[in-house]
């Protein structure tokens, strides 16, 4: 039950974050959204991910957003979206969610051990990764060795983002 409550709380946070006119509050709400998400993931046994989300998602993102806010404006202007546009946006969102909901019909049940994702590829990580890599944490094992190149790519992304920010924000000397 607590899981469900957390999820609902997520929705509330998300809604509040996008509705808040004061951007600082919105950012704070986003931060708490991330934190709750981290909690949800802990409940789902995704400890590593939850930890990353708490530090990176809730921590760094919030800091970055606040830093940006300090250089720009704090309040969102109350703009009037033309009716046509908001109808179009609404339709796009509705359509997307309709497709997604349609997709859930054939989905395996949540937590079903017989789900296909649990039958293929993953078993080897669980059964063999300790033998093959010597790491007790399967996530780390997969991250560092089986799919090590994703991690390399991830590093490249961070590096790239860093360079991007340098390229964009570096002032003339």
């Amino acid at each position: 039950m607590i899981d469900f409550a957390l999820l609902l709380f997520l929705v509330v946070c998300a809604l509040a974050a996008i509705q808040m006119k004061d951007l600082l509050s919105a950012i704070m709400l986003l931060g708490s959204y991330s934190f709750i998400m981290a909690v949800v993931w802990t409940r789902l046994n995704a400890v590593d991910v939850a930890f990353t989300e708490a530090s990176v998602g809730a921590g760094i993102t919030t800091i970055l957003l606040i830093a940006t806010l300090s250089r720009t404006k704090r309040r969102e202007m109350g703009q009037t979206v033309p009716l046509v546009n908001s109808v179009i946006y609404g339709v796009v969102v509705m359509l997307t969610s309709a497709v997604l909901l349609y997709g859930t019909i054939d989905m395996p049940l949540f937590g079903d051990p017989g789900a296909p994702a649990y039958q293929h590829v993953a078993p080897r990580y669980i059964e063999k990764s300790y033998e093959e890599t010597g790491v007790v944490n399967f996530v780390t094992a997969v991250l560092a060795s089986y799919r090590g190149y994703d991690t390399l790519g991830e590093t490249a992304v961070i590096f790239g983002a860093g360079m991007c920010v340098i390229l964009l924000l570096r002032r003339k000397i």
Partner: protein
Amino acid sequence: MIAEHFPILVILTPLLSAILIPLVGMIRRQLCWHVAFVASHIGFLISGWLLLRVRDTGRISYWLGGWEPPWGIEYVLDDLNALVLLVISFIAFMSVLYARKSIEAEIEPVRIPAFYSIFMLFVTGLMGIVITGDVFNLYVFLEISSLAGYALIAANRKKEALLASYNYLILGTIAATFILIGIGYLYMVTGSLNMADLRERLPSLYHSKVVLTAFAFFTVGLSLKLALFPLHVWLPNAYTYAPSVVSAVMAATATKVGAYVLLRIMFTVFSVEFDLHVVSITSILLFLSLTAIVAGSVLAIAQTNIKRMLAYSSVGQIGYIVLGATIVNETAMTGSILHILNHALMKGTLFFVAGCVIYKTGIKDISGLKGMARRMPFSMAAFTIAGLSMVGVPLTVGFVSKWHIALGAIQADMWYLVPVILLSSLLTAVYFGRVIETIYFSKEPGAKKSGSGLNEPRGRAGVQEAPFGMLLPTLILAALCIVFGAAASTSVSYAGAAARLLLGGM
């Protein structure tokens, strides 16, 4: 032997150079370009070697870290992506060559190391997307190239470029996330992320609603990435305001890679049978691509800014690539794949020339090109060649791909496509004809009465060509437009092999 590791080296070379460049830049800023040049050259050579290798021995599978797929990540080279890889690495090589002067003029010196670093990351991302055989790895590389792309567009920090970049970022992120959803859905029902493995496991699940949803998200996400007509909105501004070399390299490669991934997902991960009979996605895409072809051309006619015109023309040409794929027969698919190569050459040339003009004169509008043929004869010759090629004049590359697509349409009994293809050629002729006419026939503003009688001045004194470093890649690409147009047997046979590979199940 080191050659065995070429599939990973071709990715690592630009990646390492991206890291090396800022370090070198701390010592000597001028050296950054050299590093990028060498790295992109090596990348090009390796890609060439890999293509030949694939032709000799067939599919190459490279297991990263030695883990066999589907547990580890696999890099795959086959007839299709070896070709695309070569195109990308070649265009990247040419662009680096071109960038040296062009970038000096458009970006402050202090930010140049970062620029080259990101440029190489961009290339890394694109090449990674092409070479990988793992859908999630594809997502990672997609994000590398996208992030780099956003920054590159905004690299000149022009007002409009910033906004264009931001909009592209928003739409690009939506696209990437849609693709991520697609990947997640496929993973959920198959447990696998490896393309070859997915292909084996999917057929029994073709009617699963999860798979259908996954496919829908892949298609929408990729259509956004490759700027298929109604989802092209980010493209014109991005191409118009980006630094010249960035417009060129993005137009020539980024959307092509999007098209490549679409082909991969449609025909390698899924199968022809699925596309045609389960979702009949081909007819939807067929319709969209036809709209793209016509709308892109019409919008291009309406433009006054050269780069914007070229950008809209890209929208139309992307339509051709998708059209060829959706006809679903070997000839049309060959045309489609050829168009990936050919359009890279043509659009690369055109954007290069636009960059040369901007570099030399700052002119951005078509009307400003009056009498430009006298001032920049070589650039304008290149523009003319590429323009004629876009129209599809025989003996140029544009003809080869259009011929295949149109012939494929006839063979597939889709006669009605032929007039559309040919009419849009005509529209293309209109907007390129207008530019070419301006270049050659309109008198230069302010120029005195040009030549009379026997002693007409040849105007050599008035020649103000772009620097050699920019001209050379432009002319090489223009020359290739003719070489691959007049002697197309090789490229046709390569593309044909790739087409057979994609349609293998037919």
